[in-house]
């Protein structure tokens, strides 16, 4: 990405139109679950829909009754501290781990559906590839596994190398790659075949700042093209910059889900500088919630954002003078820590 960066490449289809394989509505005879009937590709359904998804390892509950829905074209952030169960959820959605209970649909098909996996790109948290293959060979292998038309392989591999910034290292053995280069290669592998859903599990854990910037650009490019991105991360600043909606997972339980605005809440903190603070003024302030002095400033905690103009109008109406109003938005990190503390 940082070498021959082409994050903007994602403003257009990855493999070009028509190079992806046709997706049959069902394939008879498979031992694994096959695609849903009547809605080829399940395009009318959410990208991900989980209901009471549960995973237990012995006595340890990794994921407890997770229910969530991720819409098509969304960048969905899946947040949580280390060990919260995020990767287990991702693996269940991809059919790599068997749920202990509950159910989930991915792209309109039951989890583990073999044909649906053709339309999913996955960058695992543990990104390792055959060390004895070179980067181009790894990508070609995944072209084969995706059963892309052979005539499209060269272009797909070249595009993927360009996006991952590995064009100059295409002939080098993966075993000699740094972790960052392997993660970039993983991204290239995940984006092969122009997937509808891209699942990124801690996608910037080994990247330098330039690589992280490029990753954000790529995610935004995917959103522009209507792709769904499921971003599993504990880097909250990253989620705050690119996600439309997020869910917060802790100890296997989803403790909050919604848009960033919903999650951060309608309640914010506002700093107000008044000309004078007399008795009538304090009565007005109290109507809007708890407040405290901070030098010349009055700080109101947890005031509804929509109420700030009413607060100003009330103070002025009561004969007061408002010199400054500074709304302070809660960061996702603050809210995240608050949510964890509340548990």
């Amino acid at each position, binding site marked *: 990405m940082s070498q021959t960066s082409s994050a903007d490449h994602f403003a257009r289809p990855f493999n070009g139109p028509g190079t992806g394989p046709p997706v049959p509505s069902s394939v008879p005879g498979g031992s694994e679950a096959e695609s849903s009937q009547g809605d080829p590709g399940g395009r009318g359904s959410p990208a991900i829909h989980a209901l009471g998804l549960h995973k237990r390892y012995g006595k340890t509950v990794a994921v407890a009754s997770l229910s969530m829905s991720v819409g098509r074209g969304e960048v969905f952030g899946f947040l949580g501290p280390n060990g919260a169960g995020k990767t287990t959820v991702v693996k269940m959605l991809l*059919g*790599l781990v068997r749920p202990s209970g509950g159910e989930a649909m991915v792209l309109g098909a039951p989890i583990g559906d*073999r044909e649906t996996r*053709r339309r999913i790109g996955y960058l695992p948290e543990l990104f390792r590839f055959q060390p004895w293959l070179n980067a181009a060979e790894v990508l070609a292998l995944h072209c084969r596994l995706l059963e892309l038309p052979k005539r499209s392989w060269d272009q797909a591999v070249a595009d993927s190398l360009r996006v991952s910034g590995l064009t100059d290292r295409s002939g080098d053995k993966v075993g000699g790659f740094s972790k960052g280069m392997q993660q970039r290669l993983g991204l290239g592998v995940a984006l092969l075949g122009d997937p509808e859903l891209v699942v990124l599990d801690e996608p910037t854990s080994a990247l330098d700042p330039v690589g992280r910037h490029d990753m954000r650009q790529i995610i935004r490019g995917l959103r522009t093209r209507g792709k769904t991105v499921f971003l599993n991360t504990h880097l909250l600043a990253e989620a705050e910059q690119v996600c439309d909606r997020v869910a917060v997972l802790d100890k296997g339980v989803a403790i909050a889900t919604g848009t960033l605005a919903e999650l951060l809440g309608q309640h914010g903190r506002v700093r107000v500088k008044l000309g004078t603070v007399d008795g009538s003024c304090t009565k007005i302030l109290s109507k809007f919630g708890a407040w405290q002095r901070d030098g010349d400033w009055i700080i109101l905690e947890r005031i509804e954002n929509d109420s700030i103009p009413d607060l100003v109008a009330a103070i002025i109406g009561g004969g007061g003078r408002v010199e400054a109003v500074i709304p302070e938005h809660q960061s996702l990190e603050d809210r995240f820590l608050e949510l964890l503390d509340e548990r």
Partner: protein
Amino acid sequence: MTFRILTIASLTIREAARRRLVAALAAITVVMVGLSAWGFERLSHSHSLTSGESNLAVPQALILFMFMFSFVVALSASAMASPAVASEVESGVLLTVGARPIRRSEILVGKWLGLAVLLAGYAIAVSALEMGVVDAVSGYLPPSPVLITVFLFSEGLLLLTLALLLSTRLSSLAAGVIGIALFGAAWLAGVVGSLGSTFNINAMRTIGSVSRYVLPTDGLWHGAIYHLEPTSMMAERLSEGRNADPFFVHTGPSWYYLLWVSAWFVIVLVGSVISFERREL
């Protein structure tokens, strides 16, 4: 389905070539065959042996050399198969492959097929080289070289299949060690069974019989020995009544036994597929 199996099989073969396993085996085999050529040349042209003694000594020495090669084939099979699944699960390589539209059964059968092709290539090469060299320097060629090769390959394939099953659940090291240990135990149980037959001790005979069904490597090795023995050698040994010799058999495996061995392959391979399908990546 076939395409996906062949993709994994060709990947497995390419890995063995890239990791220089093929080159290492070829080099060590050439050295061993070269040494055996020298030994057989000395043995067959020794002035201290009569022609009759030489006619018995050369086949006996060939059986010993083929036993050594059967051990190399078995070790190689176990060493190749034990990390086939386990190391890729441990390293995370299987995460990206397993998330593709490929069945677990196709991954496993593809790996088994690729390893089987490698093993077949090695068994054919080593048998042809060794028997060809012995024929060239001493003029002795066993009665059924093709069947010997088939038994040698089958013995290795059996251990390969077992190691692959173990690899779906255990670490590479554990799968490899257990595979080799079971191979050694099965061979020893075969010797115990032979002693039991010679001295008419039922318990020992039963150990040999049961082990040949549980892990048929020794039974298949006996098949190889049977086809390595010339008629003259068999007549001489039978007249001496030397049944307890682990390098001599007077009958080949029955069809019933070979049918059981075929069933064993199917059972263990299906078991491997089921085990791998239930494995969480």
